[in-house]
């Protein structure tokens, strides 16, 4: 049975906003050397135009046909018609509209910022080609109206991420990080691929509408298997435990990349997938519980690990992981609007935090260790304001955007009957406040502890100019990017970082709830024992404790006095469990590499020492024991082959003799 999603029609604006970044990527790739610095302007312009087109198609994306049923909201543009059940098209409904707005809007600001940040990079044009390509891939992911298109986008963003993490490929660590991210993401792609296999085998269609419409015909275990496979993809892309280990390493990429791909957009693709497949998850409580628990664990683990980091970008990476844990937890338990809202606000304040940290890193000649910062409040006042707003927002200080969405998620877990996840959410909020204020205090308070002479800040490294400070040195001005290129996007982001959350104000009558009125299932829920207001107060109390501890440890006069020794001592005393990030990397290594080597050794001894020795040495490949099992039947002797053949014939003949009744 066929179910339609969105109003079919011709939407040239939709096609335009989808294809513009691709065109930009191709043009910049082809004419990069000729374009020189214009490449940045062109790249930003196409994404900006795409954003304008998005705003112009707002009406298309939110239109609904009266009385046509809950699914008929948004715009559907058919692209390629294949065999029955295998049609490709674009779907713009409130959910994808939200993502497109963030991808193109925040993407545009980060493009502009990158012009300044990457100004002196020798591969300037290539960077923007990749960035535009990423935007196109991400749009493909969220605009696709079917699972295959989603998977194609899913794979392409992974590819773009691979290129951009490894953008500075002279650094071996960047190449290693890129490869690690790619491998884990491909594992996730494969999970989605298997989910598609199972979906097609049962529903005979790849269109979202058909799959969601026929969800009732799927058996419970089959549906659970599909959900688990989908979630493997979501977990890999969204850095959920235990597939998160690539995200901190991915910070090897340029900071704008971290802001756009590894904070605002790509890593939230998992949230999008779960929200998009809400009709699947809503039918299976086990799958929901799994996603909720993984999200909760990730939120907590990310926050704990964030307390143990000294690299400013790694702190932000773990906080990203933790915040995405919130989102996944929200959409997992069924609080879709809350989870998606946290994506919305997080995109702003996390981009803000990354871009702010980029200002610092840029000013300090690529210094990323917060132990060698300090007292930057006076030196980099603009960066301080930017970071302060971001930190207040992420901690959920009332009035700032994060507070609305985070409370919505935490309260949602209680509403949907998960008190343990509720407790985890509150605890994590306290931890978040602690490590984010720790970052703020250590970086901006006290006195400067770095090697770079603070009075020379930004001047000693003219090749890294274009920062807040270097802008004052106008004798370098014509050679460097104007400072506003980096400051204006950060300044603009301050506005939504504060106010975006207000869209949620008003509960069921808020603009947010009305926007998604037709998108998500709205089961009637029992009223929990703890009210929403009480929840907010409990969270606030925890946040206050977190800030207080951070203040006592890093911001008091006593702590400031001997900051260098204190920080060094703290690094030394840090539990090994935390500095090694709970040994996840080591565990993955043990699980996949060591065990297969062990099996290889054991089987090799058992079956044929020569074969395995030769094979392993030659291909340096560790999981061959299974293959060796099959190989051991291939003795190379003709008579042995004939013998196997005749045994096969014997099996056939016995079967046919019995089945034909000849033996009766």
């Amino acid at each position: 049975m066929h179910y339609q999603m969105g109003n079919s029609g011709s939407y040239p604006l939709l096609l335009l906003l989808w294809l513009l970044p691709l065109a930009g990527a191709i043009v910049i790739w082809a004419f990069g050397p000729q374009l020189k610095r214009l490449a940045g302007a062109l790249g930003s312009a196409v994404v900006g135009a795409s954003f304008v087109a998005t705003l112009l198609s707002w009406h298309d994306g939110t239109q609904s046909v009266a009385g046509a049923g809950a699914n008929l909201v948004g715009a559907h543009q058919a692209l390629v018609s294949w065999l029955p059940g295998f049609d490709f098209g674009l779907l713009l409904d409130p959910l994808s509209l939200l993502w497109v707005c963030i991808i193109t809007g925040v993407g545009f600001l980060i493009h502009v910022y990158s012009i300044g940040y990457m100004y002196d990079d020798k591969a300037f044009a290539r960077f923007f080609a990749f960035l535009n390509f990423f935007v196109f891939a991400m749009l493909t992911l969220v605009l696709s109206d079917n699972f295959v298109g989603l998977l194609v986008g899913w794979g392409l963003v992974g590819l773009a991420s691979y290129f951009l993490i490894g953008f500075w490929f002279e650094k071996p660590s960047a190449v290693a990080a890129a490869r690690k991210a790619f491998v884990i993401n491909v594992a996730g792609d494969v999970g989605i691929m298997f989910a598609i296999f199972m979906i097609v085998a049962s529903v005979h269609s790849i269109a979202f509408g058909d799959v969601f419409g026929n969800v009732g015909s799927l058996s419970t275990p089959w549906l659970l298997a599909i959900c688990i496979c989908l979630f493997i993809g979501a977990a890999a892309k969204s850095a959920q435990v235990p597939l998160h280990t690539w995200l901190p390493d991915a910070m090897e990429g340029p900071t704008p990349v971290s802001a756009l791909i590894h904070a605002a957009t790509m890593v939230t693709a998992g949230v999008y997938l779960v929200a998009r497949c809400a009709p699947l998850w809503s039918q299976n409580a086990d799958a929901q519980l799994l996603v909720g628990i993984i999200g909760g664990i990730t939120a907590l683990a990310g926050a704990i690990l964030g307390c143990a980091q000294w690299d400013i970008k790694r702190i932000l990476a773990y906080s990203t992981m933790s915040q995405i844990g919130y989102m996944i937890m929200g959409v997992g338990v069924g609080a879709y609007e809350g989870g998606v809202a946290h994506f919305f606000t997080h995109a702003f304040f996390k981009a803000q935090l990354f871009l702010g940290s980029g200002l610092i890193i840029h000013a300090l000649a690529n210094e990323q260790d917060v132990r060698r910062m300090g007292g930057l409040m006076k030196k980099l006042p603009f960066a301080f304001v930017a970071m302060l707003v971001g930190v207040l927002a992420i901690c959920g200080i009332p009035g700032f955007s994060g507070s609305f969405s985070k409370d919505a998620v935490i309260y949602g877990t209680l509403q949907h009957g998960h008190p343990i996840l509720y407790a985890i959410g509150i605890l994590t909020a306290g931890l978040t406040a602690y490590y984010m204020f720790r970052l703020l205090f250590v970086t901006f308070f006290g006195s400067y502890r770095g090697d770079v002479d603070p009075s020379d800040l930004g001047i000693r490294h003219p090749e890294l100019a274009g920062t807040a400070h270097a802008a004052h040195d106008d004798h370098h001005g014509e050679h460097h990017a104007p400072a506003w290129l980096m400051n204006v996007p950060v300044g603009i982001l301050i506005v939504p970082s504060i106010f975006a959350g207000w869209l949620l104000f008003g509960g069921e009558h808020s603009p947010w709830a009305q926007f998604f009125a037709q998108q998500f299932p709205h089961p009637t829920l029992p009223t929990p024992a703890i009210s929403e207001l009480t929840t907010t107060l409990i969270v606030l109390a925890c946040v206050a404790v977190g800030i207080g501890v951070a203040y006592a440890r890093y911001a008091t006069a006593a702590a400031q006095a001997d900051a260098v020794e204190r920080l060094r001592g703290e690094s030394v005393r840090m539990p090994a469990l935390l500095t090694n990030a709970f040994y996840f990397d080591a565990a993955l290594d043990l699980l996949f590499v060591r065990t297969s080597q062990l099996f290889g050794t054991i089987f090799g001894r058992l079956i044929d020492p020569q074969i395995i020795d030769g094979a392993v040495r030659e291909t340096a490949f560790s999981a061959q024991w299974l293959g060796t099992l099959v190989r051991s039947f291939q003795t190379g002797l003709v008579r042995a082959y004939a013998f196997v053949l005749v045994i096969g014939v014997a099996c056939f003949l016995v079967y046919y003799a019995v089945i034909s009744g000849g033996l009766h």
Partner: protein
Amino acid sequence: MTVNVTSADWYALAPISIVAITALVVLLADLFAPKHVNRYLAIVLAVLGIVVAATDCKAAYAHDFAAFGGAFIVGGFSVVFQEIILIAALGSVVLYGAIGKDDRIAGAIALMLWSACGAMLMAGAGSLMTIFLGIELLSLALYCLCGLADRPTAREAAFKYLILSSVASGFMLYGMAMLFGASGSVALADLTNPVLASNPLLWIGGGLFLVGISFKLSLVPFHAWSPDVYEGAPLPVTAFMSVATKAGTLAVFARFVYAAMPSGVADRLLLPIWIVAGISMIAGNVGMLAQHDLKRLLAYSGIAQIGYMLAALAGGTALGMRYAIFYLAAYTFMNLGAFAIAALISDDAEQGSRLANYRGLAQKSPAAAALMTVFLLALAGLPPTAGFLGKILILSTTASAGYVWLGIALIVGTAISLYAYAKIIRAMYQRDEHAHTHAAHPFVPLAWASAIVCCVAVVVLTFVPPALRDVLPLVR
């Protein structure tokens, strides 16, 4: 008894005759033309003949005609398979032209064309006699082709193929004799008589016949020959063998399943084949894990791939048939493409097929590595290639035909295979300090062209399913 043979019968055989005559012309040209133009002449003549045959063949697409009293049936079904075989022949002839030795190029190309004749005969075979003739013509030429290299492994491949294939032919022939005894006719159409369902001769004979089919398709446990023969045979021969043998035999099998089954026996008669197909999907992919030779790895891959195609036929639905053909077409291109890349980097000793030689390929030749990646992705069934959609289509038909367990075997097999394909891709993109280039063959552009065409086809097939959509191939 009178025999009525009209010109229509001859027209039905025209494509095969053209290919056979081309082979004779290639041989004669080799005898009488000057030595230095031999290679050009052989390639040009062969390509010309194949193109003419393919054009001629296409005309019969919409027809449905039983030539020679039903011994050879022309129609959409046979045409599609014949075109696939001709594509395989074209690709392999080009590859042989690119890397083969001068002095034996004409003989090899002639043998390849005759072998293609055999496969084409199988595609339209409507009687046991034509099937046997086709299989033997295909195999006899392949025995010789396998040995056409100055390596002991090539001779060994020829010997193993000869012995094992002959034994399998013996079983098949004995099965055919029993089928003949059951129905009193060599025509496949006469096997549909429902009276036969209770005749043990049909069951035993059908079983032995299916053994022969399984051997040619290299299904586990009748697969043992294929890794050794694929590894030993010259590279273009392996490319040809991997596609043409499968295409021809699949046509015979499909016709047997769809057009030669007494009512009500199909489920029980074919069950062993489906089981064996399921085992092949798993075992073939597992076998790939520990390989270090590309040809050998592709042999195991082929074992699994043919399992996928059979899974589409399980249940005997019309849609399944269409999807199997689609997958076969996709497989033809991705396999030929992979072999073309192997030929590109291969030297005279054919060390190009050692997987160790692919380490660092991306440094030496990024284009070759990229093309190879596309083919491997297609073989693994990842988007955006035809392999992915083929697999999805097969899954959709397998489950609805009631063979869910075959679908599960397909998914599990695919999961295992990803590891093996990823290994090659990883090796290609590794940095290798000792990277050395091989001496280039004079005709390497031919291999490049063939690889690029295959790559385009593999991607384009994803978006433009071939005309099968309009006319379901006629099976009788």
